[in-house]
């Protein structure tokens, strides 16, 4: 038995260590037809591969071919800036001079922003697949690659998953370049660095690291880089493919890497010394290190007055507490600790649940599951039929179940409360569901003691989590007094003089702290009035 266990572990280790198959490196051949054949062989009979044959130079000239993928290249650019100059210029060209033909073409003929020479076949193929245009010439061992990417992208829209009232309304898009531009627009500082790599053996997805040099901790950047380098994955279709690879606690229900759809949020995190990971094709930007308390912050906190923001933030903590604990507490009180209920409430509860067929735990889990199903159906269903769901749900849950005596009215109230409150903190929704279910079960088995056990276990787990070296629960535990300014309360912006201690420690000072900046004028005015 033990050896089986050992063997299994070893086999897993073997799987982990298996090196990626090295891709064969092949150079382009000087023979145009051979090259074309190679491209055709690789890409098969794909109809979107466009091969435009042309002959350069006077008379017969040199045979050449332009390769591009339809839909990925900007057709207009190719026609106007590549094909036309090539044909026009070369007609008058006096033939090959002393200089290299490719250099000549690149330097003097083609009017494209970015041109480079590529000797390798595989590389050229990759570039082709990314929307570049490739010029192959007979007799040349290298290809010219023109950057002509141009495809339809979604325009910058309001982020749907992070709505705010005040503040900027633009959101990231699926296009990486647009996203980096959005970040540059926010932070006009030479320190803003992007590092791009391609991850995904088959998808070759561009992944960009962004950080603010001078603010960021270099060790953190190095750590992110190494983790990204370790990723050996076939495909990246969404940022989450990557996140599950590089997160600190892959089994944890708590997200140790957060996301945002908003450039202003991402910029704020960069300015705090965090590193952003942008994945091409994903309108979400991930930032690390992630703290638990970040989930409770919203961009609107900084767009409204701090009194209001503080109040709302406390409400958010309360909502999360209610979302996670209210079913469990209800179960514990109603089926274990009736002595703790105020007398009138007990009588009401007792009257309302009398005659219902199931124990309260079962009722609670049943209705909770029912609600989750409704929610899921509401998301997946085609929009036009969506309203049916809410009507059916409201009718069935709210009315029929209670009046048929299947479940007690209080259960419905608690489930409804949970449903509403759980959406107040969107980043902890997934964790919230797991916690809620576990606590409810534990409450059903051991009452308040069960909840306490679950709570302590969660606390230990949270305390043991780290996100890229930073304790997940900081600044609560380990507590950093200076960083509590943006946790339970949101202090005025002029008082947020320092960056988070554990993240932005190389240069903690953000701005001079103090009242002076804010009220100097007023004080002068007061003095003037006195004098």
């Amino acid at each position, binding site marked *: 038995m033990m050896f089986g266990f050992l063997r299994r572990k070893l086999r897993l280790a073997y799987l982990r260590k298996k090196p990626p198959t090295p891709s064969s490196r092949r150079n382009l051949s000087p023979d145009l037809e051979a090259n074309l054949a190679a491209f055709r062989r690789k890409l098969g009979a794909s109809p979107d591969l466009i091969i435009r044959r042309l002959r350069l130079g006077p008379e017969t000239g040199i045979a050449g071919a332009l390769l591009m993928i339809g839909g990925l290249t900007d057709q207009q650019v190719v026609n106007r800036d590549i094909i036309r100059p090539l044909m026009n210029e070369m007609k008058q060209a006096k033939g090959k001079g002393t200089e290299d033909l490719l250099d000549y073409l690149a330097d003097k003929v083609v009017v494209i922003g970015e041109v480079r020479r590529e000797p390798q076949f595989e590389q050229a193929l990759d570039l082709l697949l990314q929307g570049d245009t490739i010029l192959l010439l007979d007799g040349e061992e290298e290809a010219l690659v023109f950057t002509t990417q141009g495809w339809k992208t979604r325009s910058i829209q309001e982020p749907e998953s992070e709505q705010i009232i005040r503040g900027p309304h633009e959101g990231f898009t699926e296009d990486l370049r647009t996203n980096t531009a959005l970040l540059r627009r926010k932070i006009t500082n030479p320190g803003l660095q992007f590092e791009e790599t391609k991850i995904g053996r088959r998808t070759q997805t561009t992944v960009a690291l962004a950080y603010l040099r001078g603010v960021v901790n270099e060790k953190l950047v190095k750590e992110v880089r*190494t983790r990204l380098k370790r990723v050996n994955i076939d495909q990246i279709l969404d940022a989450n493919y990557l996140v599950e690879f590089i997160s600190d606690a892959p*089994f944890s229900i708590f997200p140790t890497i957060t996301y945002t759809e908003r450039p202003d949020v991402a910029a704020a995190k960069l300015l705090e010394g965090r590193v952003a990971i942008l994945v091409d094709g994903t309108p979400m930007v991930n930032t690390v290190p992630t703290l638990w308390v970040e989930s409770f912050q919203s961009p609107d906190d900084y767009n409204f007055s701090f009194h209001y923001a503080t109040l709302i933030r406390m409400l958010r903590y309360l909502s999360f507490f209610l979302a996670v604990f209210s079913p469990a507490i209800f179960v514990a009180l109603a089926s274990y600790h009736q002595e703790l209920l105020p*007398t009138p409430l*007990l009588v009401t*509860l007792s009257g309302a649940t009398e005659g219902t067929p199931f124990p309260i735990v079962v009722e609670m889990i049943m209705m909770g599951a029912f609600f989750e199903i409704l929610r899921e159906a509401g998301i997946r269903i085609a929009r036009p039929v969506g309203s049916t769901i809410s009507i059916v749900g409201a009718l069935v849950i709210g009315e029929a179940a209670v009046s048929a005596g299947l479940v007690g009215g209080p259960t419905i109230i608690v489930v409804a409360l949970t449903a509403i409150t759980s959406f107040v903190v969107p980043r902890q929704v997934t964790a919230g569901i797991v916690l809620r279910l576990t606590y409810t079960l534990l409450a059903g*088995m051991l009452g308040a003691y*069960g909840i306490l056990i679950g709570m302590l276990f969660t606390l230990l787990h949270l305390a043991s989590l780290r996100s890229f070296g930073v304790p997940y629960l900081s600044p609560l535990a380990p507590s950093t007094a200076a960083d509590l300014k943006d946790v339970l309360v949101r202090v005025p912006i002029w008082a947020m003089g320092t960056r988070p201690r554990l*993240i932005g420690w190389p240069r903690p000072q953000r701005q001079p702290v103090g009242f002076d900046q804010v009220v100097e004028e007023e004080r002068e005015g007061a003095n003037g009035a006195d004098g």
Partner: protein
Amino acid sequence: MGRTADQGGRNRPFSKGGLRLLMILLLIPLLGGCWDLRELDSLALVFGMGLDLGPQGDGYRLTFEIVRARQIQTPGPGGSGGGGGQRNPYWLLQATGPTVFEAVRNATLQSSRRLFLSHTQVFIIGEELAKAGISPALDFIIRDHEPRIVKWLLLTPDEPKQVLAVEPGLEQITAVAIADLIQNYGITSKIKPVRVVDYLETRMHKTSANTLPIIRIKETAGKKELIIDRTGVIKGDKLVGYLDPKETRGLLWVQDEVDGGVVTVDAPGGEGKATMELFNADTKLTVEGNEHGIQVRIEVKVRSGLGAQTTSVDLSTTNQIERLEKRQAEVIREEIGAALTKARDLKADIFGFGEYLYRHDHRRWKGLESEWERYFVGAEVDVSVEVMVEEVGLITKPTIYRAPEGG
């Protein structure tokens, strides 16, 4: 921070499937769980509990007032709760046993649900039991984790069952009605409210005598009503006598428990009465003593106002107010005196003079403790009452018709 690079491998909180292991281990002992689980509809909610001696004079006979939660309708749509028609919202159950605990358990022989005592509002003790000794019956209430010791304790000369069977005028449950009756003691200050824990505390001071409010049934025109208007004196552990309302008020004065209420005096300068409303009453008690005797000083300070008058004399003049004050002080002194006389008659230190001495001068107390009864009866008591009449209500002149004078 600073260990960023080496954290990756070490800090995998659930590496090696630790989470699963732990969860499995955690859940196994719980699988057979739910030992203490009691669904709401398996509980009989006891709101009132009557304790009395058993039929043969040994053991106990308990009366439980159990709520039928279904029958207590909260306003809501539809008659969904109407199953079984309208029944009495409570159910009276009697059980006997050699101890209170066994009697409680025996009650389950007749009840389809387990009795749940945590929400018992009042404990009513029958006179017979009170004469035989209360503590043995209270032991269970104090020892067990379900009954709460901050709930009211009362005495009744009638049978506890009869008391609990009286249909209350406003509330649906008799026990709640009784609890509310006591809760409102501050409106009259004619009831001495006692919780189980108060009883226990007084009893622990061996020389003090306990007092318990008396609830009884008042029958008017065939209709039964509940009334709390007297106080029983428990000396040692046994009922020895009663205080009438006046003496009860006296007791409350001494113990500084008068919160409000009224004092009616003979109106000065005419026939008729004036009723004074108490706004604030404050009593300072000092007890001093040695082997030769003890001196008690009771200083009462009262702020009050004119609440009603039946005389046509204008009482709002300074002169009259002064007389009102004097008369009121006189009445209060009489009340205190009555209580003192009764206490001396019963040789029961219901005021806690001994307790006061113990607290403030425990060295001297040691010498007096053994013969406290004697010292108590012979105590010199000095009562001083100071009354301030501050208000005369919304009007300044009397509204009573006055036959025109003269002629």
